[in-house]
């Protein structure tokens, strides 16, 4: 039995077992789901331990290949590179956290809720692990239904509107990708296999641009990139805490992961012609998301718009196409999953206590709930990229990588993005102030309970990850390096093919050029 296949399908098996339990035994359901998700997490640690990040190691590891629909050229083919590995781990960490966080918050139709979460976990892991284009698409679409149910059944007042918008938006964008996948089949030696397709792809530059756009739109909606982000504030706000955490933590990464794994390496020449547009949209997203966060009165909506801003950083790093910025992007994907996931968990805790999401209903909570306030502050600092937290590593790599990249006007883009960092600090710290500092303005807030033991267990892994990833980034950066290097190499090959001036990699910083004029022409790492 392949370990990766086991990790993919363990949650689904758990869901089947859960479905067979008697309906009224809610306690059993919760314990079983938690155990299954913890077992999946434990198995995924085996993947981490077994993953080789040395330069000579194979690109994809834990590969499992089996015929699935051979008549149609579709195979079951899974494997992990370093980026997929880390995102898979993020998924397996977040799932038990989410189940534990919903322990008391979800009281209705608990069994269906847990079923949805477990099915969703299989679909998410499968999306990261798939190496067959159709298999990828199947997992990608299979995520929609459980998420649709999570938002639509357990969400708040406006949930029906939000969930339909979420589904139709993502579904409509994905079908174009399906068509592009079908087109690829007939132009890569009749195969849906990703690795074969990447090697044997033979399309005209014009077709490649269309195919890139088809993939890019599907991914851009999921990221979400400005101006395709409008589903996100609704979906995040209306979803239950568990849904928001998974949406922000993992589902948004599907988009950026899709760019990293599919859209960019499959069509490097086309990507080079669109990267400037992507970078500009990313910067607009950063600033727009930050400014929208400023004016929100609903704390969940504020966090949702901050996601638009944060994911803009990731996209900017991907468009910069330098090793540094790409590494930063991958790191930022993980950071955003942890810090925004934790923010949604905290917002959920407050909501459970006060049943309101309006910021003005709070204030001065630090006196009553010091632990929540302290954790909130740590997560906020991670979210705004304070040195010593994980957010700093990612944002720094992206900004410096963009500044030194060969994009048009890299300095301007990096500077504007840096403005986004400052804005982010302002609105997040303002949120902390309005929630926790000052006098208690509402009598209802006096009796609020602080963290319970269960809630402590929910938040502890997040805090631990924030600190560990901030202080010791190496174990997390190491698996990323081979994948990033391979992507850069693909783009270098593409720019050689295109001719003209260099477009990827970094320029040496001015200070280095001044110090060593003889080496000015050489590429900096």
């Amino acid at each position, binding site marked *: 039995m392949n370990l990766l296949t086991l990790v993919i399908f363990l949650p689904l098996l758990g869901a089947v077992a859960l479905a067979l339990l008697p309906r009224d035994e809610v306690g059993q359901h919760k314990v079983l789901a938690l155990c299954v998700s913890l077992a999946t997490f434990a198995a995924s640690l085996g993947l981490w331990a077994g993953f080789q990040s040395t330069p000579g190691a194979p690109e994809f590891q834990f590969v499992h290949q089996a015929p699935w629909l051979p008549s*149609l050229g579709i195979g079951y083919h899974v494997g992990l590179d370093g980026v997929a590995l880390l995102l898979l781990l993020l998924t397996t960490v977040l799932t038990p956290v989410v189940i534990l966080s919903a322990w008391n918050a979800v009281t209705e139709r608990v069994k269906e809720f847990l079923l949805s979460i477990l099915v969703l976990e299989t679909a998410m892991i499968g999306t990261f692990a798939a190496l067959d284009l159709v298999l990828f*698409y*199947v997992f990608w*679409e299979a995520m929609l239904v459980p998420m649709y149910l999570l938002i*639509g059944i357990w969400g708040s007042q406006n949930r*029906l509107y939000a969930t339909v918008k979420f589904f*139709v938006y993502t579904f409509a964008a994905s*079908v174009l990708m399906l*068509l592009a996948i079908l087109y690829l089949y007939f132009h890569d030696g009749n195969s849906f296999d990703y690795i074969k397709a990447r090697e044997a792809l033979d399309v005209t530059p014009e077709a490649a641009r269309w195919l890139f756009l088809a993939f890019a739109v599907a991914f851009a909606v999921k990221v979400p990139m400005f101006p395709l982000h409008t589903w996100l504030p609704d979906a995040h706000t209306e979803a239950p805490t568990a849904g928001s955490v998974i949406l922000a933590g993992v589902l948004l990464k599907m988009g950026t992961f899709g760019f990293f794994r599919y859209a960019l390496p499959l069509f490097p020449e086309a990507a080079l012609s669109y990267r400037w547009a992507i970078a500009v949209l990313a910067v607009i997203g950063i600033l727009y998301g930050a400014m929208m966060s400023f004016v929100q009165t609903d704390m969940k909506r504020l966090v949702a718009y901050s996601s638009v801003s944060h994911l803009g950083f990731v996209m900017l790093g991907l468009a910069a196409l330098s090793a540094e910025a790409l590494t930063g992007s991958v790191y930022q994907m993980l950071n955003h999953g942890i810090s925004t996931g934790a923010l949604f968990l905290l917002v959920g805790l407050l909501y459970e206590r006060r049943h309101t999401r309006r910021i003005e209903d709070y204030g001065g909570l630090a006196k009553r709930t010091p632990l929540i306030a302290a954790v909130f502050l740590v997560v906020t600092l991670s979210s705004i990229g304070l040195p010593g937290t994980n957010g700093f590593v990612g944002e720094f790599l992206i900004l410096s990588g963009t500044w030194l990249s060969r994009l048009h006007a890299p300095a301007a883009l990096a500077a504007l993005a840096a403005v986004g960092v400052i804005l982010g600090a302002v609105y997040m710290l303002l949120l902390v102030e309005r929630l926790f500092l000052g006098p208690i303005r509402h009598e209802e807030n006096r009796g609020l309970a602080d963290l319970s033991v269960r809630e402590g267990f929910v938040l502890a892994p997040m805090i631990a990850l924030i600190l560990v990833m901030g202080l010791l980034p190496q174990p997390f950066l190491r698996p990323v390096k081979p994948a990033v290097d391979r992507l850069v190499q693909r783009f270098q090959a593409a720019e050689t093919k295109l001719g003209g001036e260099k477009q990827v990699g970094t320029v040496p910083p001015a200070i280095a050029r001044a110090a060593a004029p003889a080496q000015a022409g050489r590429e900096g790492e």
Partner: protein
Amino acid sequence: MTGFPTASFAALLPVAVLTLGAIVLLLSEVFLVSGKRAYQSALTVAFAAAAAATALLGPRPGPVFEGQAAQDGFAVFVTVIVCAGLALSALVGAAWLGARSSERGEFYALATFAAAGMVLLSMATDLLVAFISIEVMSISTYALAAYLRRGLRPSEAAFKYLVLGAVSSALFVYGSAFLYGASGSTLFSKISAGHGSPLYLVGMGMVLSGVAFKVAAVPFHAWTPDVYEGAPTPVTAFMAAGVKAAAFALLVRLFLAAETGVNARVAAFGGLVSALAVLTMLAGNLLALPQRSVKRMLAYSSIAHAGYLLIGVVSAAVAGARAESVASLLFYLAVYSATAIGAFAVVGVLERRSDGDKEGAQAFDLARFAGLARRRPLLALSMAVFLLSLAGVPPTAGFFAKLYLFRAAVGAGFEVLALVGVLTSALGAYYYLRVILYMYMRPPEVEGEVLSAPSLGVALTAAVLVVLVLGVAAEPLVRLAAAAGGLG
């Protein structure tokens, strides 16, 4: 006796089995001793299974009766779809009619006669044989549509169906005369001899219009919503599965004969059918959007699916992609039949039982689906599976059917048709999902009596299994379809 076409008649065995079954069912009503009728639906299922088995195990000589019919893999595949559709509809019908105390042997007999016509139609390679089969199939379904003579709506449905069906038959037979005039033959294999003459153009146009009525392609679709909504629900299910499969079988054979030896890109009919496909996909999906009656929505959705199937017909004309396209079309037909019967069966379960006339479209209103997940979780789950399959969401059979069909279209060079196909199926997600939304996310609004019967459970379980199993393990059926896609 020399010269007696024993082999030809042997090829007709499935038709014979169904006809015999229909007669037995008719007689069973005459010799009925008690009021118990459960065995009639069981008999129908048995005869359907026997017909399918004879088709599967019997000889496949290819062309029989000097080329007027063909018993090949293609015909066998459609025969099995039709028989499965008949069996499932009979099971649904037993519960549905039983609850309305109107279960009669005639119902099953008519359905079995119709199935015999459909099976014959799938074999037809001659205009006259096709016409006879169409009439056998259609006249039985007119009667079935009018089976429940309570109130105006069923009568209206049956009357509309009869009149428009008669027009389509007239078009077909008149066009056949033109084609005979142009080519001197009624055999599909010979009519392309008339290529180039205006008679041929007019005749082929009329014949194809007649068939377009039967498959409910836009602009010949206007009867579908009214008839589908007004007819008794098991009949609607049978029509969506059987009539559609048989009519598409005819369309494929006819269209391929007409396009033989012609470059598809320049042939007049290729362009015409492509245009029909685009119109059908757009109109079917757009008109389904605003429907509040779930049955009517499914009727429009059947038009939309006819549009997707037309893509398969068009791409089958490209020589290099023929086998692949026909195979994908057969696979799609099989999946759609199971899914549509399942979905209509659930509609039938929830339908208001009393006087359908005053209620009008209310009988199938979305509100009746509200909160179904709490009242009947398994029923809601099966409906959700059918709807997701109709929308083409993986991992259901409907996804692979669309994938297969669109793949064939892209392989044949019809990327634009496939593009329209995927975009319109995204529209479809909206109205299918709305039913799921009502079932899972809204509190119950109507306390309706909900039908529950063992035969219904069997039919629904079978349909759900088909949709789910084909969603994860489609390979065996894909192989069978690929083997049948060669056409003889």
